[in-house]
């Protein structure tokens, strides 16, 4: 559970839905925005949102990628027919943003507004306070005008209603004087909304005011998904998409499903399907340390995955999880026969607090046994390092398994430094376990 970004479409429709309850006041937010997903039929869309046909439009990918304008991924000031043609052309294509390539699956379509004054508003959460930031010089170059940013901090405790945001606008020559009061009111409203819905971050950059309406040209937001039990009904069915460029592979999806069904935690990210080093590490912290150390030893390019299991998963869960990893690991490795520079699997972990090592290993062992022929033909070496409840039994089972299956399984306990097995795996020295 963590802060999770939501789509611009969801951020805007959520704001429009709750505007009357939290903001209200003289400014209006009609929230005219249409989502085009991978399967949204474009024909007939203009009937559902009649304004599409009547307005000049702005169309942008809605895939959690920043700096879309700079990458030429935005269509501005277009009629619906042009927008439609553009969407048909762009939808499903791959774009590279900030060095990350990802598929353009979702788009937002909105009325286009000629850029008048561009303001900046952000709400950030710090440890002891919420910061509300305003700048009259909004837009993609906001970083270059930091001197114009004014901040009002609201302490998290004691809880109180939104403070007076007037000082953000007092004496701002860039903001028309007649807007100061209504913008201060808007800030108070959106701050209340931010707090009530469990947002962790929100940024309207830029936004403008046009004909008594507030226009967020871009709206980024992150929700704290651990607040679901308090705020979930206000969220509705908001979508938490994977970060841009992260298209889950079928194996990652399978692990995600396993994770959702389980009280324990099971995570898998495939980094390099052709990688030689694969890891199955117990514990959120330890899994990061193993990944770090492989990189420190200069072998990041050989790393197949980031994987983690923790929270005392059952034997059945570790079995299912291991099968998925072993399937990936033993794929298409004809060149890496025995004797060659084969692959290795590191079943690592620190000293568990309460996870039963023998029980979690029982599931891993079941899967290893099932995959034994493929592991043998791929020349896979297995290295194990673990401690915690019942670890002696778990390590013994692993040690015996190596002989039984004819696979190299080196087994280490707490007397071997947690990451030392990585060097042993990469160095090729297999001296047997402690």
């Amino acid at each position, binding site marked *: 559970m963590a802060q999770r970004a939501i789509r611009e479409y969801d951020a805007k429709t959520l704001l429009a839905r709750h505007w009357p309850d939290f903001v209200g006041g003289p400014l209006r937010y009609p929230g005219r925005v249409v989502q085009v997903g991978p399967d949204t039929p474009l024909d007939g869309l203009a009937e559902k949102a009649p304004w599409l046909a009547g307005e000049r439009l702005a169309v942008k990918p809605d895939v959690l990628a920043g700096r879309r304008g700079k990458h030429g991924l935005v269509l501005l000031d277009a009629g619906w027919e042009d927008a439609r043609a553009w969407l048909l052309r762009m939808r499903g294509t791959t774009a590279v943003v900030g060095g990350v390539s990802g598929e353009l699956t979702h788009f937002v379509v909105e009325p286009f507004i000629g850029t008048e004054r561009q303001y900046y508003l952000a709400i950030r959460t710090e440890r002891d306070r919420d910061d509300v930031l305003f700048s009259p010089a909004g837009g993609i170059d906001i970083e270059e005008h930091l001197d114009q940013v004014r901040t009002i901090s609201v302490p998290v405790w004691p809880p109180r209603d939104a403070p007076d945001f007037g000082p953000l606008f007092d004496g701002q020559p860039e903001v028309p004087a007649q807007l100061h009061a209504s913008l201060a009111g808007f800030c108070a409203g959106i701050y209340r909304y931010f707090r009530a819905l469990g947002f962790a971050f929100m940024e309207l950059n830029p936004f403008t005011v046009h004909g008594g309406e507030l226009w967020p040209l871009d709206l980024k937001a992150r929700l704290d998904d651990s607040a679901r039990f308090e705020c979930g009904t206000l969220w509705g069915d908001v979508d938490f998409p994977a970060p841009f460029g*992260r298209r889950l592979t079928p194996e990652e999806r399978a692990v995600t499903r396993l994770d959702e069904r389980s009280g324990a935690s099971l995570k898998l990210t495939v980094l390099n399907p052709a990688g030689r080093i694969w890891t199955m590490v117990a514990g959120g912290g330890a899994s990061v340390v193993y990944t770090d150390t492989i990189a420190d030893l200069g072998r990041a390019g050989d790393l197949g995955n980031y994987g983690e299991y923790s929270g005392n998963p059952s034997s059945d869960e570790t079995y299912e999880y291991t099968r998925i990893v072993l399937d990936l690991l033993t794929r298409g490795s004809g060149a890496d026969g025995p004797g060659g520079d084969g692959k290795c699997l590191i079943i690592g972990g620190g000293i568990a607090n309460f996870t039963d090592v023998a029980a979690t290993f029982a599931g891993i062992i079941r899967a290893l046994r099932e995959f034994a022929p493929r592991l043998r033909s791929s020349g896979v070496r297995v290295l194990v390092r673990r401690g915690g409840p019942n670890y002696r039994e778990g390590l013994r089972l692993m040690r015996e398994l190596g002989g039984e299956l004819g696979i190299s399984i080196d087994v280490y306990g707490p007397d071997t430094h947690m990451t030392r097995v990585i060097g042993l795996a990469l160095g090729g020295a297999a001296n047997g376990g402690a």
Partner: protein
Amino acid sequence: MADTGFAPSWLLFDRSTRAIIYGYQAQAVQGMLDFDYVCRRDRPSVACIVNPTRGGTHLAFWGSRPLPVPMYQSLAEAVARHPEASVLVNFASARSAYGVTAEALAHPCFRVVAVIAEGVPERRSRELIAMARERGTTLIGPATVGGIKAGAFKIGNAGGTLENIVESRLCRPGHVAYVSRSGGLSNELNNIIARNTDGVYEGIALGGDRHAGSTYIDHILRYERDPEVAMIVLLGEIGGTDEYEVADALRAGRITKPLVAWCIGTSAGLFSAGVQFGHAGARADAQRETARAKNEALRAAGAVVPASFEDFDRSIAETYCRLVAAGKFAPAADVQPPPIPMDFGAAVRAGVVRRAPAFVSSIADDRGEELAYAGLPISEVIERGLGVGGVIGLLWFKRELPAWACRFIELVLQVAADHGPAVSGAHNTIVAARAGKDIVSSVASGLLTVGPRFGGAIEGAASVFRRAVKDGQPAGELVAAMRAKGEPIPGIGHLAKSVTNPDRRVELLKSFSAQHFPATPHLEYALAVERLTTAKRDNLILNVDGCIGALFLDLLQSSGLFCAAEIDEVADGGMLNGLFLLSRTIGLIGHFMDQRRLRAPLYRHPWDDIAYLAPDRHEP
């Protein structure tokens, strides 16, 4: 801080610290008590448990002795009864952790509140942090295992198993204090420090959430002031900027003790798109929040920062050895912790103890994935349609009876299910039901009449016929012998039925056996006896009990599944009345329900139906 007011502010725990445990976490409580015991504490660290669903006592162990731990349903009561407790270990769920912690912060007695739950909303955590700061309470967590002070006090599950605590030399204080973000890795730190120094003095896991109740600097400044701490270890993590407070303090000279530090997550750059590492807070939104930047900053500020986690142990060892060589302190000696008995369950699992069981059971097993009757999984019983007769075969005789035998048992259950309201059993059930008794009492009242005179003749008949057939005793001899003893033959004779008015139930049973039984020697013998007795009086027929008893012997014998000794055991072992008991229970339940539906009032037997024979005192 009523009781701990004399403790210096940097000392959160000592050997007399007591804690209230919120949430019924029996394992964590026992873990704390076992730790206390191996540390040879005078008093258990667990003052009491708050269990919102049940008050009373939880029975734990102090060494090998049972130790009652008081349990209260509210925190307020726990605090009132145990004002000496200065630590709350809060195991409440993510949903209720906020409320419980906020309530605890309002009690001035707590110096430390540890919040274990993962998934507390960030805003709630931040409010708790601000509240705790205002009250001067140290908040550890959320999303943490807690922390441990070697030889003194342990929070909840920190330190892992007792075996690990002993192996990591946590029963007595060493000279190295650490603070870690990760709770999972804190145990690894206990291990690394134990293997490379004289051991841990104190270790705190801050918790993996974005906003932790206390941060590195809070604890490191305590360690700095604590004269028992010789060096400090910090294990940081990608995300957040709390590590910079430590770098600032190092530069400012507010930390003078050697500090070995490492921030994990240096490989985050490997992931081209944002991947959420294991912890909620493990996410870098800016260059400053990366592990690499933080390691650099700490190194630049004077901390010992290895090149990789791989060298973390060596950095700790070198720093420690330098201090020892400089004569800064005397390394702590190891102590022999008192032995703690293994939990019985663990010992059984490990195969190191055995015990003669008080009970033996050989018919059903509910321990596996599926309930089994005599080894046959219940789903197979149903799939193969064994029926009630088959289940009786499995549970009463531990074998799978042939289909004809199962059907015979079911036939018996049907014909003996009821015999009207006038018989003893039904009568008693009706009277009890009308007295307002419940179903169990009413049916039991009826069943208690089953015996030698009512329903019990199945057993008697089977016993007599079994012996006679086995001994080859001619029917005439049996009849003569019984007459000589002046005893009726069990299973022979009926109050209402006779040769001319036969019992239809007996006819049904006989006809079924003729069609399906491979052989019926006992029934034939019984019929031979009946021929002799009915010649004397025409109601001395083979009655339904006698018929069932004889045929059941035939069932056992002709099924070929039972040896002679087993058949004797059934005939003489008081088992066959079970058939009548089971069958008649159906009818008795029916009578109970019938009386309930009729709302029959209390029954009182009419005076005029009773002959009062007691002497009349008024008559001369």
